[in-house]
């Protein structure tokens, strides 16, 4: 596809050429573009081009009431929307000094972890698809759908739950949903050996992904890499453990790491994380029936709700890394400023541009997927 005012550029008799990768390209996650300069099939330089999914979130959030933004925030990241809701809600709670009831905290943790499982299942499919292997995609998406069914039961919607609100959650869990979730988890877990057959123990995949897009520990630290991508470089940092929120300090879970720092290591970390999330979910399923009480603290009338002035930086570990919301209130009915620090903003721009040069063209898509770069979160 050509941009407007396209003028055919006469290249010198060089072996280098320019390639527009995306936005309309099946190897791109979402709607995003990379401008590559190639020599043969080796990438010489790579520039990210975003903004195709720009909706001006930060601006329109300033135009809406505090409660109305509950509906807006999940849309910032489509594959993993719950951390967005959680982080925004927590930022408002911190500003307003709201106390979240214990039960709501557990329910929110349940939502977060279930969303992580979804995102990782989606990720396996996506990563395999960038290598031309679609069976994994079919499996991952189908298994993820079972969790979406649980979401639908709890929140009334499949993708955009708009369920977590400042002060708690919007509805209590329906009867028996924990049992059904437990069954789905058993099923997902039982599927992992099958995924292993197809993907994780597949020599083609292993060879294809090993050594691709390798990040060293130093690079990872200095480039601001977070989340599973950082843990794939051997650094066991996780917001849930180091800057705990909700009831995460009451949960027992490990932080899986790998040392290689390449695309394969990133995938393996996520596979382990999936298991850890299932482990967390089992703890939550065991505990939640014992945690009673309200699901939301008393909120002021949402039409006349002035959140006290101040600023907070709330962080959550999303499936993609560290998610931060910097929320400023001037004491009014609407936020004065909301800055969303999506984890992918680092991975999809800064890191990708540096990992790209030197790699082969066919690996570019794989690198992007293995970083789990989520364009809507970059573009906001």
């Amino acid at each position, binding site marked *: *596809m*050509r*941009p*407007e*005012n*396209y*003028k055919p550029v006469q290249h010198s008799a060089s072996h280098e050429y320019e390639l527009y990768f995306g*936005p*309309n*390209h*099946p190897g791109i996650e*979402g*709607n995003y573009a990379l401008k590559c300069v190639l020599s043969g099939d080796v990438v010489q330089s790579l520039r990210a081009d975003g*903004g*195709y*999914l*720009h*909706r*001006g979130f930060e*601006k*329109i959030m300033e*135009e809406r009431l505090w409660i109305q933004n509950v*509906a*807006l925030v999940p*849309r910032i990241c*489509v*594959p993993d929307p719950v951390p967005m809701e959680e982080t925004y809600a927590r930022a408002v709670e911190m500003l307003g000094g709201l106390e979240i009831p214990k039960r709501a905290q557990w329910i929110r943790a349940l939502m977060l972890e279930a969303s992580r499982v979804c995102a990782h299942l*989606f990720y396996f*499919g996506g990563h395999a698809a960038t290598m031309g292997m679609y069976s994994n*995609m*079919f*499996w991952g*998406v*189908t298994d*993820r*759908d079972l969790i*979406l069914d649980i979401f639908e039961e709890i929140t009334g919607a*499949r*993708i*955009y739950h708009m369920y977590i609100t400042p002060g708690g959650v919007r509805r209590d869990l329906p009867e028996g949903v924990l049992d059904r979730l437990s069954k789905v988890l058993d099923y997902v877990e039982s599927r992992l050996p099958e995924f292993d057959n197809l993907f994780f123990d597949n020599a083609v995949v292993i060879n294809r992904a090993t050594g691709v897009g390798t990040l060293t520990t130093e690079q990872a630290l200095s480039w601001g890499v977070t989340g599973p991508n950082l843990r794939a470089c051997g650094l066991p940092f996780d917001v849930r453990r180091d800057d705990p929120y909700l009831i995460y300090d009451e949960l027992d879970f490990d932080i899986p790491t790998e040392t290689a720092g390449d695309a394969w290591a990133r995938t393996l970390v996520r596979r382990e994380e999936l298991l850890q999330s299932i482990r967390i979910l089992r703890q939550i399923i065991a505990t939640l029936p014992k945690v009673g009480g309200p699901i939301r603290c008393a909120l002021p009338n949402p039409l006349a709700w002035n959140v006290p002035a101040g600023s907070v930086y709330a962080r959550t570990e999303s499936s993609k890394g560290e998610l931060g919301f910097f929320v400023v209130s001037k004491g009014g009915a609407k936020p004065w400023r909301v800055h969303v620090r999506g984890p992918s903003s680092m991975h999809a721009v800064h890191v990708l541009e540096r990992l790209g040069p030197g790699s082969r063209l066919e690996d570019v898509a794989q690198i992007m997927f293995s970083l789990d770069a989520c364009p*809507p979160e970059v*573009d906001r």
Partner: protein
Amino acid sequence: MSTDPNQAVACRTVDAEERSLLGRVLDRIADHCRARSLFVLHYCTGCGAIELPPTMTSRFDLERVGMQPMVTPRQADILLITGYLSVKTLKRVVMTYEQMQGPKYVIGLGSCTINGGMYWNSYATIKLLDRYIPVDNYIAGCMPRPEAIQQVFLDLMGRIDRGEAQAWKDYYRRYDWYLGQQQQLFGTNWQAPTDVVGEAIRYRLVGEQTLGSHTAHLERYAPYYDQLGIIRPEPARMKARPQLEVVSR
């Protein structure tokens, strides 16, 4: 490529009222077959795209009705606008749409394509999709679930089968109007590589609003048109050819 519009290529897309009985029967047969093998362009323009993998994969399996994602616009039949479109994406969408071969169908997914949706007050997104490209079908939801997307595809298949999904012809007949809307957003320098006017002539889909003040802005790119061997849209020349029927809407 034939460069003379007068040779009026016997193309299968002439309007029904101009066709002979046999032609119409053949059209219906073609439509019937076409409806059973639709390729959807693989382009995630917005958030609704997240529900497409489930729709296309095992669980809601749209391959059973002959649908499949297709990676190139040239071979795709359906352009799915999955929700909001930023102005920046709209340019690519228009270019993609123009690259697709007729007959082609556009489906608007969710609130954003209808009246701005969630992002009605955003400076970055467009509000009414049908102002920029013709749309064949819509679906309510934010975002619509896979079963609902199935239904919109089935509905579209039925419309194609019955010969009702003709919105793509509107783009040729009223190209000046569509281009004007696009220019309002992108500026009058806006130009896509596809020669829509030339195609309209060849498909015999020139309407009263195919050419106008907005297409006149394209004249300045004439050297480029010539260089590519594409017919320049030239109102004067078209007037001189009475056999070219102007179809009024």
